[in-house]
């Protein structure tokens, strides 16, 4: 080992940063990419199977119902507001704001997750009826698992913020949580269009 000569001092560098400067943001980005790509492959398979059918959905299979899914996607759109406000409060280190908006966000998330159950049945077919049913159920089900993970994450964060004294870096986690939530609902939009609206159009 060669002798060392100090050439720079890091003691003035921040220990808590936001967005692309924080490692957690990169982890979120990484796993969002993986999950998004998996969804994309599932959707591609769905469209591939579609080639095997003359009519889509198959004969004697009704189109998926649009009521619940539409309600849910509106909810998702609305959920952006509290999520964004929570993230902003986090960026102001505003504890009260974070607590309140996280609570609202979790409430909406739970509502969305609950609606997801009826959303599955809104497909109006079963996973074991035919390949169409299998594909649709798998895609919606897989996204449900992403949703579940996100809900656990958000609720956990909410609990922490209400009942524990937290280090300041948790405020940065709030905005990463919002970031992940945006991804979760962002990846849902194409699913909604292809799996639920698609069969109605062509």
């Amino acid at each position, binding site marked *: 080992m060669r002798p060392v000569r100090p050439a720079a001092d890091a003691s003035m560098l921040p220990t808590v940063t936001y967005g692309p400067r924080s490692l957690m943001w990169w982890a979120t980005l990484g796993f969002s990419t993986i999950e998004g790509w998996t969804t994309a492959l599932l959707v591609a398979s769905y469209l591939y199977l579609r080639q*095997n059918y*003359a009519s889509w959905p198959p004969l004697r299979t009704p189109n998926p119902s649009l009521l619940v899914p539409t309600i849910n996607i509106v909810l998702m759109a609305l959920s952006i507001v509290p999520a964004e406000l929570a993230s902003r409060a986090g960026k102001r280190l505003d504890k009260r704001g974070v607590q309140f908006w996280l609570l609202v966000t979790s409430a909406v998330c739970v509502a969305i997750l609950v609606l997801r159950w009826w959303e599955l049945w809104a497909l109006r077919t079963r996973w074991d009826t035919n390949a169409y049913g299998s594909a649709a159920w798998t895609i919606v089900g897989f996204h449900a698992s992403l949703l579940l993970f996100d809900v656990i994450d958000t609720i956990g964060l909410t609990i922490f913020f209400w009942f524990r004294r937290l280090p300041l870096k948790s405020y940065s986690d709030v905005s990463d949580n919002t970031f992940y939530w945006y991804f979760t609902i962002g990846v849902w939009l194409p699913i909604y269009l292809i799996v639920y609206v698609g069969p109605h159009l062509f």
Partner: protein
Amino acid sequence: MTDSFRVTLVITLCALVLGCEREERRLNSQQPKGPQQMVTQVSLQPGPNVVADTEEGAFDDNAQGTTEGQILFAQMNCSGCHSNGGGGMGPPLMDDQWIYGSRPDQIFATIAEGRPNGMPAWKYKLNNQQIWQLVAYVRSLSGLTPKSARPGRDDHMNVKPAPMQTPNAKPKNSQSTTP
């Protein structure tokens, strides 16, 4: 590392006990002995008047045997009367009603000996191993065999494509090179 291997060893031993029976592939069917001396016309009370030999063992908890039974069920056209276990000309096999008893040896007798009103005797057509496989499958239809050994959904390759799948020219048969 070593610790995880000690654990492995223990689990292995347990798994050996659990897994083997279900997963065993019984490939060498040894020369089976001829059909036992059973009287072919049967009394109507449940149960055969002779007990079929179980030397070759029932396939109840053997996955491969049950699946072979499923294949035989289709090949021997049992569905002709029993449909896919739902029943038609013959009694349904999926419910828990058993005219001649649901014990493996009873079902064995039913298949081997036949029963009045149409059920033919199969003992001259199939060997005991095959009959035992059918027994396992028939019992699996009404959930009498361990779930882990029951066959999953059938690919029913040999039937025509399901009605909802009207063959679509473009993506398939891309290779048809007929001039």
